[in-house]
């Protein structure tokens, strides 16, 4: 069966510090991978998605970047965090087929102080 791992679960970082959140998927190959952010009391905002190694699509211009160095690894990064980067970050994967559902990791609660 497929599983998705996302870490860390919580993170407190000072403004201006770098960020690296990692997500890995097991039990499938060539998944579509996604990073979402959920601000307090709001819905999910798609940040990045990837349909293959090295292929990244950015949805929102911002302080963040994403990379996919391996087929089942997806990394969210920032060189300098802003207060507005605080939120709940979710990684997800889908099969590369039409109309399939997404499977989510447990999320990372990021607080920038």
């Amino acid at each position, binding site marked *: 069966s497929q599983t998705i791992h996302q870490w860390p679960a919580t993170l407190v970082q000072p403004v201006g510090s770098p960020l690296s959140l990692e997500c890995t998927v097991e039990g499938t190959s060539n998944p579509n991978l996604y990073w979402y952010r959920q601000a307090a009391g709001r819905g999910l905002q798609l940040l990045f998605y990837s349909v293959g190694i090295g292929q990244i699509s950015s949805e929102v211009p911002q302080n963040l970047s994403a990379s996919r160095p391996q087929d089942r690894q997806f990394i969210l990064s920032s060189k300098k965090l802003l207060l507005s980067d605080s939120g709940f970050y979710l990684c997800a994967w889908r099969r590369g087929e039409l*109309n399939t*559902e997404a499977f989510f990791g447990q999320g990372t609660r990021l607080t920038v102080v």
Partner: protein
Amino acid sequence: AQSVTQLDSHVSVSEGTPVLLRCNYSSSYSPSLFWYVQHPNKGLQLLLKYTSAATLVKGINGFEAEFKKSETSFHLTKPSAHMSDAAEYFCVVSQSGFQKLVFGTGTRLLVSP
């Protein structure tokens, strides 16, 4: 472009009474629709999905939803609420051929004893 509207930000019910969470979608083509549930500080779990098969879809934990093309709706229902149903619920649309899922803003379900 596809979109979903969740008509209620909060719904309050008593334990044992029916649940109705409303969702309307906008889509140029035949959509796939999903309902997800999120408990506090957790990832999202798929409740059910519609992918152009039966219009009445049964999901986990006694939930079901009916796809009504004429009304562009995909409302989520449950005959009898349980305390453990208290959570945030998201309606999601995916269009054929598109890699992205579009989320509604969520409905928080409150269940009182």
